[in-house]
């Protein structure tokens, strides 16, 4: 109960401190909704900035139609929509990235060399997840309609993330090819759509223990020159979170994870912190992670939910995204040209006996990890929650944030909503 009270107080404090639509030198555009694909609910958006706007990709649908009494029915496609610099959707109908059979889920997106690369986990084989990718032009043309198979070995390859490293797209994912535990693998994809590391490169092997010691939910960010920092979370008996520096697809600094905190110190990301979000800035990186886990043993970190790292990936400072203690989930971060922009959700308690609802927040943080602007309460009420935020930027002070907007009534589908934060 003590923890719930703390959460309530912290959450209200953030709501009161943030204001919308404008505060200080930051302005916010009104919320816009992206079109649905075949009236199917929209889930888990991902986003990247291209030339003069963003591409937002999301999962369309989740279950198949009909009775699920005798067998479960699943079906989801990946679709996308372009948004211009004014926050206006450019596509009346979403662009279909993949409509293969079964499920296409958990998309992620990067832009480089005048191309977007979308990556996702795919169940078209009906047995286990594989990693697929597709290139999309800034004009919205899908170049790989069947998808590029990045990794399709036995057992799951899933939860991919991608970054443009200045030379190629570096894709990372969690991989169960060992049939024992998840490990972190990566592969590069060229702008011509070729998988440069077809077998995948082991970036971090599992922790050898009787209980497995999996590595989960990798995050990646690049400062260019073919280098990327990759972070992940570990199984609780396999240590805490860690990271490596990757260059040209290979691990070059296995000890980049000097930040790794210990659960008992509750200072850094621990085994329940995944997913981690990661962004590259001019002098280093910003990482944030889930810090809200329902009470009891093994909860999330209480003393921070983000950290600043230097160019080599060494930990510099722990911090709270909101500048004071608060619990977060589903964070995403980006460098907007003069500061990091961070979006996340908190669980807001309105009244006792009623479940907390998800609400989306956005703020900006300096390279040194200090608050730059106010915390903006972007969206989310008990009647119409908002969740799964994703951020992108033009690198000139404009942050794009997209999120799931949940309906007030059950006859209205979940849509992807969209706002812009402009910082002067």
């Amino acid at each position, binding site marked *: 109960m003590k923890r719930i009270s703390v959460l309530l107080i912290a959450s209200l404090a953030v709501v009161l401190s943030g204001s919308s639509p404008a505060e200080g030198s930051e302005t916010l555009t009104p919320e816009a909704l992206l079109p649905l694909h075949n009236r199917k609910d929209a889930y888990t958006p991902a986003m990247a900035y291209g030339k003069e706007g963003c591409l937002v990709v999301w999962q369309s649908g989740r279950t198949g139609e009909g009775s699920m009494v005798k067998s479960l029915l699943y079906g989801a496609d990946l679709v996308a929509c372009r948004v211009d610099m004014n926050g206006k959707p450019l596509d009346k109908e979403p662009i279909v990235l993949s409509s293969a059979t079964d499920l296409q889920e958990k998309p992620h997106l990067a832009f480089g060399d005048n191309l977007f690369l979308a990556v996702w986990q795919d169940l078209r084989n009906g047995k286990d997840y594989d990693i697929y990718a597709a290139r999309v032009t800034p004009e919205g043309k899908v170049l790989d309609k069947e998808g590029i198979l990045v990794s399709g070995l036995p057992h799951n390859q899933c939860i991919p993330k991608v970054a443009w490293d200045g030379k190629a797209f570096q894709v990372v994912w969690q991989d169960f090819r060992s049939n024992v535990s998840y490990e972190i693998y990566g592969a590069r994809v060229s702008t011509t759509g070729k998988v440069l590391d077809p077998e995948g490169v082991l970036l971090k092997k599992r922790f050898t223990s009787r209980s497995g010691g999996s590595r989960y939910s990798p995050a990646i960010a690049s400062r260019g020159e073919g280098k990327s920092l990759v972070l992940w979370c570990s199984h609780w008996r396999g240590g805490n979170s860690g990271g490596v520096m990757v260059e040209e697809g290979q691990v070059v600094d296995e000890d980049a994870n000097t930040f790794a905190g210990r659960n008992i110190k509750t200072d850094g990301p621990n085994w329940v912190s995944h997913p981690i979000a990661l962004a590259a800035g001019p002098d280093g990186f910003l990482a944030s992670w889930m810090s809200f886990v329902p009470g009891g043993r093994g909860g999330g970190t209480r003393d921070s939910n983000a950290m600043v790292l230097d160019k080599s990936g060494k930990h510099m400072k722990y911090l709270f995204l909101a500048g004071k203690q608060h619990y977060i989930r589903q964070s995403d971060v980006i460098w907007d040209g003069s500061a990091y922009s961070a979006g996340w959700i908190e669980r807001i308690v309105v009244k006792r*006996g009623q479940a907390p609802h998800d609400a989306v927040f956005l703020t900006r943080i300096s390279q040194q990890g200090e608050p730059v602007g106010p915390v903006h309460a972007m969206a989310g009420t008990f009647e119409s929650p908002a969740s799964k935020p994703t951020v992108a930027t033009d690198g000139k002070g404009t942050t794009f944030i997209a999120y799931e907007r949940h309906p007030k009534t059950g006859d209205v589908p979940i849509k992807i909503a969209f706002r812009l934060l402009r910082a002067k």
Partner: protein
Amino acid sequence: MTEGGRPEFISYDPPTERYHTVTGSAGGYLDGPFARARFGCRGYNARARQADSFDGRYHFATDPENGHLIRCLDFEKQEVRTLLPDQRRSKGIVADSKGRLLVVLWQRGTSQLVYVTPDGKSENGPALEMGQDGWTPVLALDEKNGRLYGTAYLKAPYKWYVWYWNLTDGSFHGVLPSPPKGGPRRKQNELGPFEGAYLYGEGGVDFGPDDPDKRFLYMGRCDTAYLFRLDLEKKLLEGFDAIEGRFKSTGFPRSTVYPTTYYYPPLGWMKDGSFVGGRSHLCYLYRRIK
């Protein structure tokens, strides 16, 4: 229903080992299609109780963060609705073969049994005699003998790890006694007669699908990770020995064959007598244990 703050229901299909989100996304409360229904979370301090209808059409779950309301998942219509929307007390649930959900509204003093159908119609059963006090019982139903078995996280002092209510008159009957403080007892988890059994923490109970006489009541215990079985005829506490591959009634169970760390019985029985257990990140399939 997942733990760790994800307000979602996950399905697991043992033949393919696939698991997916069936319903739930953002936290909150909304009835309606699977695609957009919203739930609260369960967690370490918020026990959810779950039950399946006899015909497999419905899955019922209490929603602790929404006042323990009963959420009914209809797999025929892919739709969620709330049963007994005015009852926000902690409750245990179990389904019977007539398509009804038995709900135990558990609170100090006398408790109440309520029968509710998936369309929301309810009817009171007998008041239940309370032999002891606790939180959110786990229930197992023996329709042949008219008994409703229960176990719970109990307020000390208490006398019974496991008990049953007579479904006709609501009377309370102890089954597996808890040794009195300072009284004679065996070592923790040591198998043998009901008398003298000493167990850790709270538990969960369930009957298996291949036991029409309801002789064996399966039981998991919080943090222990052993699978126990109560032989109700011989009044023996048995435990599974994964090394010998059988239940035994002396010594100690061996190997953590039962993976849930908290308080649940097997998460789901399969038609061949296998059951599925689970924990935070993975689900495991366990083959039939004779």
